[in-house]
């Protein structure tokens, strides 16, 4: 397992803020983070008759990177899309339990979904820049909130810099965003998400369509972004989870099998299924 951790890109820092307790003592899925950003409590989710998530309990710590891993169809993306209520678009979907962000129930009756989505940004599996110029892509969100003119220029530059894309596109801001390379497009999408100044950034397999170099850039970016943002990343790539995340959750068939610090998950998982998965025995 150690070879995973010593992979050539960024090494995950090993954090020892919370001393590990003996296995089985603490409730599964709850890392006693000092200040949890997202609190998921007994969430069950059904698509029609088919249950996709079974009793998920989870605390996602603030300003850390949390990775969801697991085989395809295990529910990790479904859970991610609950955090910004993008699942609302799906017909016949029922969700029970609560999800709190900053202590507020995001499925509460008074929640303004637009406001929630402004605070919880998302980057998709396939880069999806709008068929507009690079500038207009980044300015899209702020424009919706009524920001105009010079303030907009400022936001666009700041966001592109934060997404480490500014230097590459500074002389072609008004060309189509679709003319960029795959990795650049994905960073453009990150810049677009950052432009509305979210607190949480959800990333749904952001590197699955990218080559290793572009992936490396995105991972460096994730590392830099966690200073300011709480990041939740869904990934198929276990090395990636090991490299970029502080905490990792392992999902299987709609259940969260294990949630712990990444080093712990990858070196000393408590559940047999986790160990089987990360050592490649199935999945």
């Amino acid at each position: 397992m150690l070879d995973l951790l010593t992979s050539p890109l960024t090494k995950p820092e090993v954090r020892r803020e919370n001393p590990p307790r003996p296995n089985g003592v603490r409730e599964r899925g709850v890392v006693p983070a000092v200040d949890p950003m997202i609190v998921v409590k007994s969430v069950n989710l059904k698509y029609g008759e088919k249950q996709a998530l079974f009793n998920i309990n989870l605390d996602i710590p603030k300003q850390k990177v949390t990775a969801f891993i697991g085989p395809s169809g295990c529910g990790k993306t479904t859970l991610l899309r609950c955090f910004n209520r993008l699942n609302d678009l799906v017909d016949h979907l029922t969700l029970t339990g609560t999800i709190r962000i900053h202590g507020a129930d995001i499925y509460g009756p008074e929640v303004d979904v637009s406001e929630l989505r402004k605070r919880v940004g998302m980057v998709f599996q396939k880069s999806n820049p709008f068929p507009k110029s690079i500038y207009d892509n980044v300015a899209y969100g702020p424009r919706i909130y009524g920001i105009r003119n010079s303030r907009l220029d400022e936001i666009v530059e700041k966001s592109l810099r934060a997404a480490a894309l500014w230097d590459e596109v500074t002389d072609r801001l008004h060309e189509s965003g679709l003319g960029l390379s795959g990795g650049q497009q994905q960073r453009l999408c990150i810049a677009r998400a950052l432009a509305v100044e979210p607190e949480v950034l959800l990333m749904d397999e952001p590197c699955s369509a990218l080559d290793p170099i572009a992936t490396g850039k995105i991972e460096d970016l994730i590392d830099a972004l966690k200073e300011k943002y709480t990041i939740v990343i869904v990934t198929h790539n276990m090395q990636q989870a090991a490299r970029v995340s502080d905490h990792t959750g392992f999902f299987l068939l709609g259940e969260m099998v294990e949630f712990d610090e990444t080093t712990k998950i990858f070196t000393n998982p408590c559940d047999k299924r986790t160990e089987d998965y990360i050592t490649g025995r199935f999945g």
Partner: protein
Amino acid sequence: MKRFWKSGDPFIWLTGGALALSLVMVAGLVLLVVMSGLGVFWPSPVVRFTLTDGTVLMGQVTEREAIPQPGAAPGTPRLYRVQLKVGNRDVYGADFVWVDEAKIAKRETPLDAILIQRREWGNFYGHIKVVKEGGRIVAEGHDAGWSAVQDRLPDVLQLARRIKQIEKDDVGAINYAQERLRLRLRGLEMHGVSSGNEVEGLKQEMAGLQAKFKTAETELATLRQRLNSSLVVATADGKEKDLPLAQIVRAFHPNALSLPQKFAIYLSALWEFLSDDPRESNTEGGVFPAIFGTVMMVMIMSILVTPLGVLAAFYLREYAKQGPLVSAVRIAVNNLAGVPSIVFGVFGVGFFIYVIGGGIDRLFFPEALPTPTFGTGGILWASLTLALLTVPVVIVATEEGLAAIPPVIREGSLALGATKLETTWRVVLPAVMPSVLTGLILAMARAAGEVAPLMITGVVKLAPALPVDGFFPFIHLERKFMHLGFHIYDVGFQSPNVEAARPMVFTTALLLLLIVLALNLTAILVRNRLRKKYAGGAF
């Protein structure tokens, strides 16, 4: 053999052959129209036939065909006959004669044969005898006469143009103002006001217009008096005819022309065709009002059909809950595209003209009744009918475009906190515009070629005025209009002189094809620009 079938080659041949056959048919159609249409204005030579019985005929050869000889023994030499356009309809009664080639004793192309295109009675073929001015003879003989005509013709044509302009613009404006005054008086009368300041004022204005009309009339009369030149012309067989100079559109010696001169005449005739009003029950002159009517109708139709179709498609695809009902609506919309166009025409008459137009008349133009204003065929109703006819095309194309937009693009917008409306307006609509334009292109192509529904909703054989002119409110959507498609039908099959009009049919058809092509090319260029703006290959 089995290997041959298995190789898949026969299928390639079958598909390729089908494509080739379609192309050949389309190319043949276009070629026929182009060949027959482009040659119409070419000044072909004038021939003089002396027949065995001594008859002399002069004109242009238009056709040559074998005489059918049923029952003849094989090997009999074929006999031919030619069709000669002899013109001079006022003298002979018909423009064309068939002549058996066997009966022609002498065939010559006299250099001094003159072709005079006239405002009435079609072409004249013959010679100039005498040129007169105010009854006084100024030149005698063909050559002297020709130079006298050439001296006077430009002035006469200019004068004729001036007269036409006064008739159309000045007198037209007076008539228009008078009609409006009359309607206002009538409107006051209907409200029970038949005296008082307002009525007096209007009556005074009316009198002023009457006086203006009188002056215009006298001016016209003096101008007309100046058109006193005329010439006496003789046909090939010696019949004489008096012809006022103002009746001449164009006169030339077809057999004495050099190639550049022929080109000049060809181009000037072509320009006349494109820019002038029709003459002689549409068989001569130009088709400008029909071009204008066609283009304007297609434009109005596009303006009406695009928002309607796009909004309907957005509801069907973006908002409606997908289910059996929406599927049924979708099938109904598709079927609507297959309804015969005349059915739409009948609906246009029954609903748009009688119900809506009649309602508008009763509400806003009661003073004009019983003469209908909107309650009769007009360009607006024709365009609306065509919009209805083509809306399924736009709906289907837009829906397909919407379906092709990847959901992840919409989600990207929603995930930034945009509402559904903002997403639709800012992301979906721009991305679907190329598809909308594709639909519009198909709709325009269909609308420009449609004739049946127009015949009952506002197209006429000859419209007195264009739907756009200099009188307030400048665009008159209630007016009847001319249309190239109907023009083809009318000229080719309804005109009293079908034979003479037949070349015009092809020319007009070619023009209609070119206009449809031009409209489509414009839309395609716009679409490609949009595509370039929004393309990039990411999806």
